């Protein structure tokens, strides 16, 4: 535990968040009717933003290779499909993923800092991160110390993020807030502001190990934090909702929210990612339906 050292995140506190208002806004955005060509565009865009993820204790070299092949060959029967943005694995499997994805343009993200609980000392977390970077990770998905944050030790969390950022070198840093453990949208907003101030390239909702994981209200509040950060500093940082996004329709709703909160400049894998695994096939299924006019069963889409 340390005392507050840096001015976090500025001298003005985060604005309060009204949950009722957020839910109303989300309901309204979710009611957007996305049809035909605009639907296909959205689905392809969503596909290109996926961080295809496997984070199980049972992950093996074989499993990760399978996943990487899926990342490269999402559904070769359909032409013009983009590849996913990244494959997300544990640090020990970064090298495997890196080799499997060589030359594909798909990035490798590693969860680090004692994922998913974050219950470890600073040095362990830094070592974990350095290891992932040395193995070749292009992106680091770190978790914040939620216990410290909930105790009000914002300085500790700020320093933690800043320290990890310092060892990230050229790797992109995504900071997982684990919003399902934060309790209120006010805290989601505070944690978002804090992470952005400390140097997060992306703020990410969840580890996927805690329910609820990503929800539209949480994502909207984080988008508002990103928009305000942009208005204040001119910098465009990214968002990654992760966990619980399984249906193509949900993904499109997130894109609607993104477009109408942050604007067209965020509609790119450089600023928006979706952490998911089963979502990929649902998107492909929907795109296939738009071209072929009928739905095919799961057996026509490769599982990874």
């Amino acid at each position, binding site marked *: 535990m340390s005392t507050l050292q840096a001015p976090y995140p500025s001298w003005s506190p985060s604005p309060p968040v009204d949950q009722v208002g957020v839910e109303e806004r989300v309901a309204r955005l979710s009611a*957007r009717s*996305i049809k035909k060509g*605009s639907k296909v*565009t959205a689905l392809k865009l969503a596909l290109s933003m996926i961080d295809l993820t496997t984070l199980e204790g049972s992950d093996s070299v074989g499993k990760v290779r399978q996943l990487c092949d899926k990342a490269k060959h999402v559904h070769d029967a359909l032409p013009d499909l983009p590849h996913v943005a990244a494959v997300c694995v544990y640090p020990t499997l970064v090298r495997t993923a890196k080799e499997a994805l060589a030359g594909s343009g798909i990035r490798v993200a590693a969860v680090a800092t004692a994922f998913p609980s974050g219950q470890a000392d600073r040095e362990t977390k830094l070592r974990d991160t350095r290891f992932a970077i040395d193995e070749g990770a292009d992106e680091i998905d770190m978790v914040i110390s939620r216990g410290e944050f909930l105790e009000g030790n914002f300085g500790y969390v700020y320093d933690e993020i800043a320290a990890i950022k310092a060892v990230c070198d050229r790797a992109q840093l995504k900071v997982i807030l684990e919003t399902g453990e934060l309790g209120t949208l006010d805290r989601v907003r505070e944690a978002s502001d804090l992470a952005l101030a400390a140097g997060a390239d992306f703020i990410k909702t969840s580890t996927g190990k805690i329910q609820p994981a990503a929800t539209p209200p949480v994502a909207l*509040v984080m988008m508002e934090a990103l928009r305000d950060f942009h*208005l204040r500093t001119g910098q465009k940082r990214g968002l990654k909702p992760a966990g619980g996004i399984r249906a193509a329709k949900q993904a499109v709703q997130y894109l609607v929210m993104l477009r109408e909160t942050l604007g067209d400049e965020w509609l790119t894998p450089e600023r928006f990612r979706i952490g998911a695994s089963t979502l990929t096939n649902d998107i492909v299924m929907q795109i296939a339906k738009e071209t072929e006019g009928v739905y095919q069963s799961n057996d026509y889409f490769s599982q990874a």
Partner: protein
Amino acid sequence: MSVVSVERKSAPEPAWTYAPAPESADPGIRKRYGLFVNGEFVAPADGKYRTIVNPANEQPLCKVAEGSAADVDRAVKAARQAYTRVWSKMPARERGKYVFRIARLLQERSREFAAAESKNGGKPIRESRDTDIPLAIAHFFYYAGWADKLDFAFPGMRAKPLGVCGQVIPWNFPLLMAAWKLAPALATGNTCVLKPAETTPVTALKLAEIIQMADLPPGVVNIVPGGRPTGQAVVEHPGVDKIAFTGSTAVGKWIMKALAGSSKRYTLELGGKAANIIFEDAAIDQAVEGIINAIFFNQGHVCCAGSRLLVQEGVAGSLIEKLQSRMNHLIVGDPLDKNTDVGAINSKEQLEKIDRYLVIGQEEGATMWQSECPLPQHGYYVRPTLFTNVSQSHRIAQEEIFGPVLAIQTFRTAEEAITKANNTPYGLSGGVWTDKGAKIFKVTRSLKAGVIWANTFNKFDPSSPFGGYKESGMGREGGWHGLAPYVRLERV
């Protein structure tokens, strides 16, 4: 690893717009409508029909009979006959059943009514589908429930109907205003002559079809469309016992003069220039959304619209920046597209009035900013607009524009906000945004307005009374309060 290399496109172009998503329901609008008198559609006495225009494309929609004084007289006589012979004698329980039946039939055809409302009035289908029609139905259900419980509404008293009610309604919420007027009148045992607005009679006449289907005794509800002379005939008719009017303050004043010395009762819902007050401790992003709902709901054609924004100086700069960014995402266009946020201005006259105020605002020295959205080539449209550097002395801060135009002023203390908010001849509604509960009570208690929302805006419910202070009107509609203007109380 044996990976077959396939050429792949990189991510698609970021530019992504929504494809058109038109409402497919058939609005069921006839080519020609007569007057609805004594349970049937009849031709007007002098054979005059008005062409109703779709404001979204300026194309004719249908022809509607123009009621003359003679037609109003016929309708009032039918209403009187229905009142004395049937409706006033019917047990309240039976009366209530008819009103319930109207509500249910309307519910069954709500999609069709929503499409018709948007086509005639220019409001986005999202609003007619999610607000106008469901609320109209809710009003019929709510007042139907009161019909046989009036003894409990006024304990120790007997509530007697007044007789024939003349009801004149505006063009901004055509079906909803008809429901606000008809539902309490019918539930309390009165009969009605309703005059819809000259530009928006379609859903009222479709409601006449519902009334026929509901088998309401002929003459209980009569609908006489027309312009101002028709309304004047309703107000001045000696056979009318009560006038209920929603519309402009100018006409409201005329009605008060016309009724002076008569025994007619009246309720008036008139204009407004509501202050929406944002304190710096508010949930700013949700307040921005509230400001959008307050002024751009129904193109700002809302008497209780939050047309004056009062922002505390500490957050004014960033709030206006966010508001502009939000306004740039408003979709203005085809009212029947499910994604449209702001539809068409109701009529050419209203469009010209709004445009005049845009000029006045700039001439007075305020700074105008408009959203960058594209507008359709045909039809009556205005870009969502805001004015900054507005003073209390400017006309755009004092007069009701009735369009998507927001006048923004700043304040330093709660006292200054209250003074500015109350410094208007109107007093219909208001809004207060703060994270502090105590401040909500302190400020709202000092505001002279009939309806005040805290951390939200433009929320309506049939059980909640609605009405204004000062030049915003007399009497209340909705809730228990809305029964009182339609009954005469006698001690049991």
